[in-house]
């Protein structure tokens, strides 16, 4: 890896970390979703700084050039974060379903308690 790419990766990872922290700070990103991004930022930082580690990973995965490792890493990250989001969306869908059902049940109860319109015994 030439020094320029390493410098770029270093700057990129720091910028990424700052952006993520700022998004959490502004409450645009919930803390619980930020950790995967922070881990990624830290991983890029480490890869930029620790060349021999990247070389070792390259050999480990059987790649020929270091750039393959970086692309591989990026693809892995995108896959993991997509799965993460899919599970969160699934959980949210389940919650929305439950809430909607509760609303229907409460609505029925409320209407029943209110009684037929204009025929209620409510004192004014």
């Amino acid at each position, binding site marked *: 890896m030439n020094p320029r790419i390493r410098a770029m990766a270093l700057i990129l990872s720091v910028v990424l970390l700052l952006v993520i*922290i700022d998004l*959490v*700070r502004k*409450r645009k990103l919930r*803390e619980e979703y*930020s*950790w995967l991004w*922070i881990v990624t930022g830290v991983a890029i930082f480490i890869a930029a700084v620790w060349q021999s580690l990247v070389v070792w990973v390259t050999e480990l995965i059987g790649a020929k050039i270091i750039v393959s490792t970086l692309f591989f890493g990026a693809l892995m990250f995108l896959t993991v974060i997509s799965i993460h989001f899919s599970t969160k969306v699934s959980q949210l869908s*389940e*919650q929305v379903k*439950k*809430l909607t*059902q*509760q609303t229907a049940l409460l609505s029925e109860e409320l209407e029943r308690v209110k009684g037929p319109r204009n025929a209620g015994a409510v004192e004014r």
Partner: protein
Amino acid sequence: METAKKSNLLIVIPAFNEEKNLPAVIVETRAVEPDATIVVVDDGSTDGTAEVARSHGARVLSLAVNLGYGAALQTGFLFAVREGFERVVILDGDGQHDPGSIGRLLEVDGVDVVRGSRFLGTARYRIPLARRIGMVLFGRVAGLFTGEPVTDVTSGFQALNGRAVRFLAENYPTDYPDADTVILMKRAGLTQEEVPVAMRERLSGAPMVSPTRSFYYVFKMCLSILVTLLREKPRID
């Protein structure tokens, strides 16, 4: 039909599947504070928590889905604000907080948030080592910011006044009271103090807070504290 509230004290009891422990908690609490209104926040329980609470005379807020301890507490605060309560005591539905100590919390005047600490008294409590280290470490960090010692940073046994309740009803970003909540309240200008309280081992069942993997917890807390410090100072009312 609910009668007019007898006193200005609301006792919020968050509970998740506590049908076994709740009756004793409610009965003991009522014995200590008979004029207070008790509201149980049923955090999406799958057992008879809500029914048991109702049958023991407590008001019940049943969350349609499980949101976690922090959100359940916040629901209690929202209820307090809506109903106009000026004093709120929070205590766990699993029986760990001894209602007999409620008086200790309430007798402190002029402080927005009174936190009950199990470590200020003479009793000794068994706590897993990793958890203890975390509590001491983050207690120290929180103490740095509040300027006072924080001995039981995760204690959910507290008394709050109207000012604190109104603030927390709007601002409760965490899932569990911890060092980040202490710091948040400090930045909002709320005064805090600790008093000794008695706590007990759980009466039955699994603990309300499952053991968090230490590393993830430390990371989460650090990020949360960092972000709390970076945000603008929250304002009250």
